[in-house]
């Protein structure tokens, strides 16, 4: 029983990383109907920015303050990267066909992966410890400070995002753009601005995930975004792409099921299960768990 509860905690900490990345996929899909395949690589860049920032802090004792600064720095840098990608790559082709946009996204993804290998080097790098390490036992289940931080910070960010979307004027505008881009434009909403904000927010969340994973699993490399990006995409589809709470739910489900498969079956089936779930969802409930059916208007 303890082992089972421990596995749930392991799954939650892995799942919250997926959830944070999945949010970026789902938000961009919501406003642009674009699967932003470069999103996983933005997460990779976030991890590297965090790595270089924490190296700068290397002289100082690990503390939550420095961890906080590193995370904010990485989020700011990736928000900027998100803006640049949107402005230079996606905006010029926004009115072109959906396929053009998708291929552009794949191009950006390849650019970041190979650029990353050139700039950061192809060898893996290892995160220094950022925050002090301690762990505590709750009913014989061991929670490490890293796991607690990952789960806590992810949920805090998700709640903040939810508040932003539901309570602020910009959030309202985002929902309007997601509902109908042209109508929103007619109502005087600056859609360019809203789309830019969406990219910045999504990329910042991915950067946070990158730093959090660095705290938990210290190894980072320029191709780390591929598999995490894919799984987060599966999570977004599972929850219902375009749906923000759905992305969180999907991320946690994928994380927990993956840990259970490895723990009780075999690690060989780890990825097979994630993508098996995707196939099942597409067959049984194509709109996702929390997604709404969208009628195609002709």
């Amino acid at each position, binding site marked *: 029983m303890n082992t089972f509860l421990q596995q749930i905690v*392991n799954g939650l900490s892995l799942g919250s990383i997926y959830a944070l990345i999945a949010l970026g996929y789902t938000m961009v899909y919501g406003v642009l109907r674009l699967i932003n395949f470069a999103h996983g690589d933005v997460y990779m860049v976030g991890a590297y920015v965090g790595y270089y920032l924490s190296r700068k802090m290397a002289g100082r004792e690990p503390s939550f303050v420095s961890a906080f600064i590193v995370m904010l720095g990485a989020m700011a840098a990736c928000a900027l990267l998100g803006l640049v990608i949107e402005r230079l790559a996606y905006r010029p082709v926004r009115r072109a066909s959906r396929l053009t946009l998708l291929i552009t996204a794949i191009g950006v993804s390849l650019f970041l992966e190979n650029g990353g290998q050139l700039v950061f080097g192809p060898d893996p790098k290892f995160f220094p410890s950022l925050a002090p390490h301690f762990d505590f036992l709750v009913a014989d289940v061991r929670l490490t400070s*890293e796991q607690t931080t990952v789960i806590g910070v992810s949920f805090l960010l998700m709640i903040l995002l939810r508040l932003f979307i539901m309570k602020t004027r910009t959030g309202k505008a985002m929902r309007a753009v997601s509902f109908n881009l042209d109508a929103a434009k007619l109502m005087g909403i600056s859609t360019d601005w809203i789309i830019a904000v969406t990219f910045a927010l999504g990329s910042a969340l991915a950067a946070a995930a990158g730093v959090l994973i660095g705290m938990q*699993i210290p190894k980072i490399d320029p191709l780390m975004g591929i598999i995490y990006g894919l799984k987060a995409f599966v999570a977004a589809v599972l929850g219902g792409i375009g749906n923000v709470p759905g992305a969180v739910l999907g991320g946690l489900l994928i994380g927990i099921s993956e840990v259970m498969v490895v723990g009780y079956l*075999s690690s060989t089936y780890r990825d097979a299960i994630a993508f098996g779930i995707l196939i099942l969802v597409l067959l049984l409930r194509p709109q996702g768990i929390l997604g709404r059916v969208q009628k195609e208007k002709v």
Partner: protein
Amino acid sequence: MRLRSLAWVAAAAMALPALGCGKGRTTDEILIGEYGSLTGGIATFGISTKNGSTMAFDEINSAGGILGKKFKLLVEDDQSKPEEAGTVVTKLINQNHVLAVIGQVASSHSLAAAPICQANNIPMVSPSSTNPRVTQVGDYIFRVCFIDPFQGAVMAKFATNTLKAKRVAILVDVRSDYSVGLQTFFREQFKQLGGQIVSEQSYSQGDSDFRAQLTQIKAINPDAIYVPGYYTEVGTIARQARELGIPSTVPLLGGDGWDSPKLWEIGGAALNGCYLSNHYSVDDPSPLVQKFVADYKARFKEVPDALAALGYDAAKILADAMSRAGSTDGAKVRDALAATKDFAGVTGKITINKDRNAIKPAVVLKVENGKFVYVETVTP
């Protein structure tokens, strides 16, 4: 048209003397080819080996060489790509006319080049490819290191006799032949010695989250955990094991795949008290080892790893075989290599058996604050 045929004639005229001097040049020199990964993902392996073999040949040359000739080493880079290994070895043999070949560390590279050496009757000595298949290519292919089955058995003996472990869990990298090989032979030997394998978990090279497997292992409460992987994953595994509360009294055990300065950088204090089997130890008090370590440090400004030591031994054994054969002829050198017996190398007394593998002891090292400390020698 006339211009082009003129160009052909000119090219042929230039090529002819070049062809002519290819063979004749080697009268006072013994040309040895070496292929290795000097750039790319496993570059430190190739550079260490090259340092070791260069040092060995320089020592022999300054002592007067053999058969009245001096060695000349030609090193080619295969860029950490197995397919490139075949290309550069073909060049070494056909263009440079080397008389013997040294290489490689990674078994997949050795397997690509070995058939070429075999077909050309050129003896090849691999310093550190441990996969059993390498020397099965043919009778011109040798190695100076032990093979995977032996390494797995060494750790099983050590766990039973020295650590008194009865219940051991295994965490294996299912994507690596090396890791699966060690797992198989460890399990076999450990059971034979009366031990019990209480859990077998797996991961794939490149994974970074091992908490699920380690949680299962922790629940079983083993005496030790055998992790025959490469250093990147092992460091992460050690760290996560301790974070999940597997006490430091439960050591992780592994093989020569751990031998990298990066191991400590990743795993840190979580690795204290863990053990690995390896080819040699820098702490070995034997004067041969201490002289090698001191010379290497003076020349290359770093502590020689096992790959450097094996590169050194490979070169020395090859030179020894040539002087015993009294010739550099491929077939004669092959027979002399096969007859190598009790050669005193840095990595132990080396005897070549009928499968052209080295029979020699392994050492068990303990990780202590970033250093590999010598514990004991296990003989075959």
